């Protein structure tokens, strides 16, 4: 299982660095950040904060685009290009395939994040002459855990919806929906009549709360780090959801006829 999954993950990572998407997004993020940083019309204090905020927003967008599009095309591409046949004709189970693709996409997103966060640390370090390493590491780690949930979700989507483009679109809508309104659903539910209220409450408890993983404010405002136990709990929470999505993906894919 692990042997096959790592072999498959290696292929996903190789694909990522042989395609142009990542380089383009990184260069775009870097250029836009540097451009904004070079404009000096606010006072010193504010511009530093805006640059950080802006750079982190770009990193979030770019990482989500890479994670979602990379994951969404994996299994559909295997099927369309028919590489799945020689692959599954080897002692590779369908569970190995799903777990390997998950691992590959997740590790690839992690590598992308490391590059982005190092860039971010260099930029802010140059301006502030000091970086809060623990806080930055937490922000990176939580971001990466969130991408684990995203990758699991999109992988499931790629088995349910055959077309990668519709899967990507639906995934983006769901992810943005959770990030923007996820935390308010319970309050909205309170203000509604039954049965809508209960339904909304259920949704609130069932969805993976990706917004927990957003520690941008802490590093933008140099507000210290989060408690480590909370990071630990969030890590477990993310792994449970990622595993759940993979399990459902496997159940759906397990007996599917391929041809």
């Amino acid at each position, binding site marked *: 299982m692990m*042997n*096959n999954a790592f*072999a498959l993950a*290696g*292929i996903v990572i*190789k*694909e990522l660095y*042989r*395609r142009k998407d990542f380089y383009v997004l990184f260069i775009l993020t870097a250029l836009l950040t540097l451009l904004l940083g070079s404009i000096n019309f606010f006072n010193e204090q504010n511009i530093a904060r805006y640059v950080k905020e802006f750079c982190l927003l770009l990193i979030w967008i770019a990482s989500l685009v890479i994670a979602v599009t990379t994951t969404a095309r994996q299994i559909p591409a295997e099927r369309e*290009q*028919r*590489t799945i*046949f*020689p*692959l*599954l*004709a*080897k*002692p*590779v*189970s369908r569970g*190995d395939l799903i777990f390997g693709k998950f691992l590959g996409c997740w590790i690839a997103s992690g590598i992308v994040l490391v590059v982005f966060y190092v860039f971010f640390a260099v930029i802010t370090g140059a301006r502030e002459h000091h970086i809060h390493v623990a806080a930055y590491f937490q922000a990176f780690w939580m971001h990466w855990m969130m991408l684990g949930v995203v990758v699991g979700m999109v992988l499931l989507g790629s088995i349910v919806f055959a077309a990668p483009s519709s899967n990507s679109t639906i995934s983006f809508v769901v992810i943005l929906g959770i990030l923007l309104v996820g935390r308010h659903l319970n309050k909205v539910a309170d203000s509604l009549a039954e049965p809508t209220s209960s339904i909304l409450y259920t949704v609130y408890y069932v969805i993976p709360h990706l917004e927990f993983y957003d520690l941008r404010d802490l590093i933008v405002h140099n507000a210290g780090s989060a408690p480590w136990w909370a990071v630990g709990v969030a890590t477990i929470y993310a792994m449970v959801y990622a595993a759940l999505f993979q399990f459902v993906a496997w159940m759906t894919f397990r*007996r599917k*006829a*391929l*041809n």
Partner: protein
Amino acid sequence: MAEVIKVEKLTVEFPAGGAGQQTKVAVKNLNLTVSSGEVFGFLGPNGAGKTTTMNVLLGFVNPTSGSASIFGVDVRQPIARQRIGYLPELTYYYKFLTAEELLRFYAKVFRIPKDQVESRIDEVLKLVELEHARKRLIKTYSKGMQQRAGLAQALINDPDLLILDEPTSGLDPIGRMKVREIIQRLKNEGKTVFFSSHELGEVETVCDRVAILNQGELKVTGRVDDLVRENQMNLEKIFLEMIGYKSPVTV
């Protein structure tokens, strides 16, 4: 002789393609055994059910009823595929990988010991004559070269059973001859080869036994030389007779 492939009462139905359509029976109550060391030709016109049968053997498609096993292991177990080499009907490989990277990946899946991987890759690339192109992306290969890369991946684990779906389709006469030589060579090494083909002349020269399938049903199976002797005609004529073909000229 040990049975390498055993198919019992295999039926495969596909759901209707559209409203008002009946379910499509691709394979009907098929019984088939392939013994160790045999070269077995699996014949039938387009749509006869050859690829579908192979898809069941590889676990891609589930039987509607009946069963299939390889080396005595039910085909639904991934371990049944440890000693198989498979060449699909249409070969496409990861576009961003070179031939040697592809083979390295598959070697890993088969858990070939690290110190043997490179020599094994050299060996199969030499066998299919792709050494000169090993560092090129497979997507830049010609069709025949891709087919040979496909054969190389099928051989990477030194399999005891090869399942080849139309291995010579799309190859030039020299390419075909080379595939025949490879099959012959594998046979001499004691391997079992199960392949489908439309090239009856070729089948007649390399196969020990054949089965002819028509519309999902087994029409005949037996040793090539026995069939030719008993029927007093070549394999092509037997094939046409078995599938009920009447030449419009003679009718």
